[in-house]
C-alpha cells in the first residue's frame, strides 16, 4: 500500500473515531451530575475521548500492514497513550477554558459568542496536541510526536471551531458535536498526514513478496527491519531474514541502512553492506529475499 493510501486510511480512521466517540461523550455529559467534581468529570471525558481516538489511530499501523498482532498491540498501546494524552489534554484544556473566560467576556452574549468558543477552541487545541503526541509516543518517536503535535494542534483548532460555531449558528442541532468530533478526527488525521509528508525524508517501498507495494515513511528517525513482530517493518514470509536484520536510520538530512544481523547480509544495489551505508535516491536494499526501494516523496 502506498503512503498516500495509508494516509487516507489514517484520515478515515480519524472520522470513524469521531463517530464512535460521540455517543460515549454525549452519555457522559448527560450524567454530569453523577460526577463528584469538575476534575473527575473532565478526567472522565478526556479518558474516554482519548481512549477512543487512541485505539482507532493505534490500530492504523497494523491495519495498513495487515498484521493482526500489530493491530491488537497498536490498538492497546494507542488506547493507553490516548487515555494519558486525553486526560492530560482535557484537564489542561479545561483549566485554560476556565482561565480564559475570566478575562475575555464583557456580557453574557459576548461571552457565549466569542469568549467561550475561543476558550473551548484553545481547549480543543491542547486536547488535539495531547492526542497527536500520544500517537508518536506509541511509536516511541520524538519526530512522530512532534508531527502528531502539529497535526493535533491544527486538527484541534479546526475541529473545535467547527463544534463551537455550528452550535452558535444552530443551537438546536444535536449533531453539531458529532460533526465537530468527526472533523476533529478528520483534521488530526489529515494534518498529521500532511505534516508527515512535509517532514519525511522519503519512503521505503517494499518491492516483492507479501508486503509488495507497502511504503514506510521516514517521519520517524528509525525504522527497524526483521522477521520479529517487534520491528517497524515485519518481514513475515520472506526467506533468510533475521529477527532483527537491519535498521534504517535518519541522521541529519540523510538516511542510512545499518546491518544488525551478523550472519545474514544486507545488500544495497546488490553490494553487501559492511556495517552502515548512506542511501541515495532509487537505491535498492535487500534483506534476505525482501527488496526495498528508497525514494523521496
Amino acid at each position, binding site marked *: *500500500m502506498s503512503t498516500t*493510501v495509508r494516509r487516507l*486510511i489514517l484520515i*478515515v*480512521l480519524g472520522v*470513524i*473515531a469521531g*463517530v*464512535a466517540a*460521540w*455517543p460515549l*461523550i*454525549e*452519555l457522559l*455529559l*448527560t450524567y*454530569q*451530575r453523577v460526577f*463528584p*467534581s*469538575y*476534575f473527575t*468529570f*473532565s478526567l472522565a*471525558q478526556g479518558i474516554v475521548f482519548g481512549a477512543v481516538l487512541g485505539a482507532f489511530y493505534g490500530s492504523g499501523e497494523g*491495519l495498513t500492514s495487515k498484521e493482526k498482532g500489530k*493491530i491488537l498491540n497498536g490498538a492497546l498501546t494507542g488506547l493507553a497513550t490516548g487515555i494519558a494524552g486525553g486526560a492530560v489534554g482535557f484537564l489542561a484544556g*479545561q*483549566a485554560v*477554558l*476556565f482561565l480564559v*473566560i*475570566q*478575562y475575555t*467576556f*464583557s456580557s*453574557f452574549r459576548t*461571552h*457565549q459568542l466569542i469568549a*467561550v468558543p475561543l*476558550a473551548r477552541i484553545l*481547549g480543543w487545541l491542547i486536547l488535539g496536541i495531547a492526542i497527536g503526541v500520544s500517537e508518536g509516543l506509541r511509536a516511541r518517536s520524538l519526530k512522530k510526536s512532534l508531527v502528531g503535535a502539529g497535526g493535533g494542534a491544527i486538527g484541534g483548532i479546526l475541529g473545535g471551531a467547527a*463544534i463551537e460555531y455550528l452550535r452558535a449558528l444552530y443551537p438546536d442541532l*444535536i449533531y453539531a*458535536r*458529532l460533526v465537530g468530533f468527526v472533523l476533529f478526527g478528520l483534521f488530526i488525521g489529515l494534518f498529521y498526514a500532511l505534516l508527515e509528508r512535509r517532514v519525511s525524508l522519503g519512503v521505503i517501498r517494499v*518491492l*516483492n*513478496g507479501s508486503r*509488495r*507495494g507497502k511504503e514506510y515513511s521516514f517521519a520517524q528517525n528509525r525504522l527497524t527491519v526483521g522477521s520479529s513482530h517487534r520491528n517497524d517493518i515485519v518481514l513475515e514470509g520472506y526467506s533468510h531474514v533475521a529477527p532483527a536484520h537491519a535498521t534504517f536510520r535518519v541522521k541529519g538530512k540523510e538516511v542510512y541502512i545499518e546491518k544488525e544481523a551478523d550472519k545474514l547480509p544486507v545488500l544495497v*544495489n*546488490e553490494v553487501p553492506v559492511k556495517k552502515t551505508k548512506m542511501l*541515495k535516491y*532509487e*537505491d*535498492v536494499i535487500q534483506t534476505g529475499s525482501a*527488496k526495498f*526501494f528508497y*525514494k523521496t516523496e
Partner: protein
Amino acid sequence: MKRFIYGIMVFTLISGFLGAESLSIAQIDASSLLLSQEIDLYLSITDDDGRSVEELSLDNFSIFESADGDTYEEVPDLRDLEAKPNKVTGIHILLLIDNSGSMYDTLSGAPTETVPDMRISHAKEAIRDFIDSSFNPRDVVSLGSFNTFLTFHSEAIKDPSALEGLLNTIEEPEREKSYTELYHSLADSAEKMAGYRGRKVVVVLSDGEDYPYYTHSGEAHPVYETGVKSPEEVTREYQTEGITLYAIHFGLSKDENLGQIAVDTGGNVYDARNEAELARIYRDIKEKIENEYRLTYRAAMVPSDRTFVRVDYRRGEEEVSTARYYFTSTIFGTPADPYPVLILLLIAAAALLWVLLLLLRYRKLNADAALSVLNAGYSTKVSSMTIPLTQNKTIIGGGDRADLTISGLPSLRPEHATVVYDPKARNYTLMGDSTITVNNRRLAGTKRLSDGDVLNIEGTTIVFEAGEKQEKKK
C-alpha cells in the same frame, strides 16, 4: 493568595432588602473549581445603619445553585466562613476624583479663587487623611481623575504615602476639558482594574452628574467620539470584572444613576458635605471591604454554561437573599436533552467501518510476471502502468511497436530495452545498453532479472515482478 476572580453578573440583585440588613455578593472566586470543586463567595453584610455585621457563622447562611436561575437546589457542603479575609490578602483601591470645572468652586457651589476653599482641595485633604490612617502593607492603591478625559496619576502603588505628591498633579482643567465624562471614566477604570488580581474596588468622588462632551458640546469627543455610555453598561463592566464601585456625592447636585450603579456592583453610595465627612466615608468604605466575609462551599455539578448561586442569609428575624452567577463552561459543552439513545448505534457503525477497512485488499499480486511502472520520467508518458510478460520477448522503447511505450523522450530508441523469457530455465533476462540501470547499477549488456528488480530507463522507473506463479514455483 493567588486569586482568579471569575466574571460575575447580577441577574437579580437582591430579592429583597426584606429586613433592614443588606447582603451583597461582592465577588465570586471560582479559581479552585477544577482542582478542589470549591467556590469562594465574598459577602458584604451590613445592618440597617450601614455598619458591617460581625460575628456571623455558617449557620447564618444557606447556598443554592441552579442551571437556569429559576429552580434552585440547596448545596449541602458549606465548608468555611472567614471574617475579614481582605485584611490578610489586601485590597486594590482605585481612588477616582472628579476634576471637572465645578470641583474648583466652593462647597456651596460658589465660584472662588481661594484654593483651600475649593471642593478639590477638600477632596485631596480627605484622601490624604485616608491614606495616612487606613492602609495596611498589603493594600495597593491607584489614583485617577476625570473631566473630559480620564487620567491615571499612578497605578498600583504599594506605598500609599507616595500618593501625597501625586495628588498635586491634579490641576484645574481648561474649559474644553472641564466636562464630566463620569460613565466613560468609570467604564475605563473598570477595564484598567480588570488586569489586576485580588479584591478590587473603585471609589469615585463626584460633585455632579454625567455631563458628556459630545452631548453638550455637539462635537465628537476626541477619544469616545459620538459614543455615549449608559449606566447599565457601566454596571455590567464592573460586574463582569468583579469590581465593586463605591460612590461619593460631594456637592449639591448628584448623578441620578451613580448610586444604583454602586449598589448593583455590591458597593454603596454616600453623601458628603465637607472634608470631615468625606474622610469618614473613605474610612467607612475601607472598613466595609475589610469586614467582608469569605464563604467557601463545595459547588454542585450543574450541567450549564453558567451556574447561578443564591445566598440566603438569616439572623434573628432578618432574612435577605441575593444571587449571581459564575461561568462553568466545559470543553464539550452541555448535554443533548434528552439523550438520543439511537446514537449508540453509531458505535456499531464505527466498528463495522473499521472491519471493512481491515478487509480491504489494497493490491493484488499479478498472476503472471509483469513490468510495473513506479514513476514515469520527467515529461514522458507511458502506454501502460503494468504490462504482463506473457510473451517470450517484450520490448520497451519510444516507438509505437514497443510493448511498453515511453513517449516524449527523443533519446529513447524504438526498441530501447528487451526482456527475454527463457521457457526452459523459466527466467527473464533484460537486454539493453548502459543508459539503463538495474538496481541503481548500469546495465552491462544483459542482466537476469529477479523479483523486485528495479529498472530505470531514461528516468522511468519500472519494477520487475516475477508473478504469483513464479513465486509459488520457487
